[in-house]
């Protein structure tokens, strides 16, 4: 499995290689798998998107990368997180600290709460800049440069303001400035646009792309929004119930997704073009809780084409066409023998026109 992933998941040389990542949570004397057997690469200069519903384990994967789960004694992280020759899962806290901020930066979902409310944003950016530079004038110049670069107007004034004095979009830009302060090679963006409105969302995504192009930086973008993934990603990885169910290059993925869950997610995005105009449909049911995941394929209770085999045997991730899919019936779907969600009720858009 690992070899297939290495060969096919990334054309670029890998910067980050996650192998068989497991995250377990100890609850009532029992270990519950929150993330299981996740493997993927992020190549140099590549934007990889982790997509999935809430609770699919995407944020946990990101938090595991930067050691944010280390202090939680109930969490166990297993597997290899290879980054530039070292395993982020096993290196000492001291070595991890050298990677944090300098090699890998991270931005969070809620920009307002990711900034310290009692400190002006300029000081907070300076704190991150000080990880690489020591001279005060140098730090100050770099702060202004960063603030300007992430598109905050009037930098000299803005750096003196507190997070509550600026808008959510500005906060997220400040957070991006902090993440970029140490010139990281990889930026992890955990739902960076979820708390922002659509126009700001588009600006932030454009900014991420621009930064990628300027610096040849890699981005691991975590989102539940297929639209965001389609706009931004080079490759898409879909997670469901703690495992990867499908992975492939963006264009191919949207052209012929091979997993019923991916297809369901794509269908769930309202579209204004093509045959699906003015319609969208939702996947019935909801994600099973981590402690009582079903036997076999975790998705089978919600799947419209689940067979007996799906109920008993857990599908492995394997090559199907241009992507990797963890579905027993992927081949049948690709050859057009079965079509998921064909009988599903179509939800009309408000307005009554269908």
């Amino acid at each position, binding site marked *: 499995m690992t070899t297939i992933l290495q060969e096919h998941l990334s054309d670029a040389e890998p910067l980050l290689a996650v192998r068989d990542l497991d995250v377990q949570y100890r609850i009532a004397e029992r270990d519950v798998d929150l993330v299981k057997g996740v493997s993927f690469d992020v190549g140099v200069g590549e934007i990889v998107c982790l997509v999935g519903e809430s609770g699919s384990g995407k944020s946990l994967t990101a*938090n595991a990368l*930067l*050691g*944010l789960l280390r202090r939680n*004694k109930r969490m166990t992280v297993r597997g290899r997180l290879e980054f530039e020759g070292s395993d982020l899962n096993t290196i000492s806290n001291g070595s991890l*600290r*050298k*990677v*944090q*901020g*300098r090699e*890998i*930066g*991270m931005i*969070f979902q*809620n920009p307002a*709460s*990711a*900034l*310290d*409310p*009692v*400190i002006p944003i300029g000081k907070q950016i300076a*704190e*991150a800049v000080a*990880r690489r530079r020591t001279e005060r004038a140098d730090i100050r110049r770099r702060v202004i440069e960063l603030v300007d670069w992430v598109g905050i107007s009037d930098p000299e004034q803005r750096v003196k303001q507190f997070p509550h004095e600026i808008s959510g979009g500005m906060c997220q830009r400040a*957070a991006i400035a*902090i*993440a970029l*302060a*140490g010139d990281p090679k990889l930026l992890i963006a955990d739902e960076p646009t979820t708390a922002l409105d659509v126009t700001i969302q588009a600006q932030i995504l454009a900014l991420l792309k621009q930064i990628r192009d300027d610096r040849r930086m890699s981005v691991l973008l975590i989102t539940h929004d297929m639209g965001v993934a389609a706009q931004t990603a080079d490759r898409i990885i879909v997670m469901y119930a703690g495992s990867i169910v499908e992975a492939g290059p963006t264009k191919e993925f949207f052209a012929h997704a091979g997993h019923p869950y991916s297809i369901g997610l794509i269908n769930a995005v309202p579209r204004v073009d093509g045959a699906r105009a003015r319609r969208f449909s939702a996947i019935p049911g909801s994600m099973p809780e981590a402690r009582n995941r079903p036997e076999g394929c975790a998705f089978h209770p919600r799947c419209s084409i689940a067979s007996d085999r799906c109920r008993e045997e857990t599908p492995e991730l394997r090559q199907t066409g241009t992507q990797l899919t963890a579905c027993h019936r992927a081949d049948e779907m690709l050859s057009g023998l079965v079509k998921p969600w064909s009988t599903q009720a179509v939800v009309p858009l408000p307005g009554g026109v269908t």
Partner: protein
Amino acid sequence: MDRVPPSLRPSAWSRWINRPGLRKRRFRANKVMLTIAILFLLLMLAWALAPSLFTAGNPSATNPLASLAGLSARFPLGADQYGRSVYTELVYGAKVALEIGFFCTILGGGVGGAIGIFSGYLGGKVDMMVMRGIDMLMALPPLFLALIFIAALAPTTTNEIIAVSVATVPAFARVMRGRALEVRSRLFIDALTVVGVRRRRILWRHVVPNCAPPALVLASINVGTAIVTAASLNFLGLGPSVVTSWGTQISSGQGYINKEWWISVFPGILITLLVISVNIVGDWVRDALEPSSQ
């Protein structure tokens, strides 16, 4: 209105309590009270800093001829059994009261707050052990705690401050630990960790400043509590015996309360006013720093 059962209709009492315009009136009343409280505190501060400006007498000058003299031009608030002017003693006692209130809050609040923040931020076993210790102290009423300490130490002003400070430690430790736990779990702490900021720096530069607002509120209210605790110790005769304080004044007037009431009543009124003023200002500080609690 007809369909609402009688039990759910607003009672006359609740209608009166929520009568229109009351909020506004209450707000205005608050402002008046706050102004009075601040003026009173300023007066006490002036007494403490420059007592000789307010009274010509000497607080410890006894005069057997004036023993138990009533209210007069010479003794505006009467004289005690040794012929000392109650008013002069009150003016000189302000310094003792404010000193106790201020230093005990700084010392006790500082130590208690530090214990609480460290304990909450570090968490785990350290936190558990420290907090069990604090629980033991909390099992005793603060006055009793102070009493134990002053009884074990010599009755000097410094020791009294130490004893009252010890009594304020548990409350501060508890509140600050709760705050530190809450701040520690906030997203920006993760964001700082991810940038590679050291834990010690996160504690000093980020956790401590975020714990400041509740600490200030608690401190401003604690000043009054500390004054009462110290006055109680003095009343019980456990405070420093050579210094005149309001607590010792009340205590010495005990036997005369039926006829020569002024010896005990005036210091009592002053302690009450001081504590109420401090609490009013404390409430105002809380409203200013934590608008959500209104």
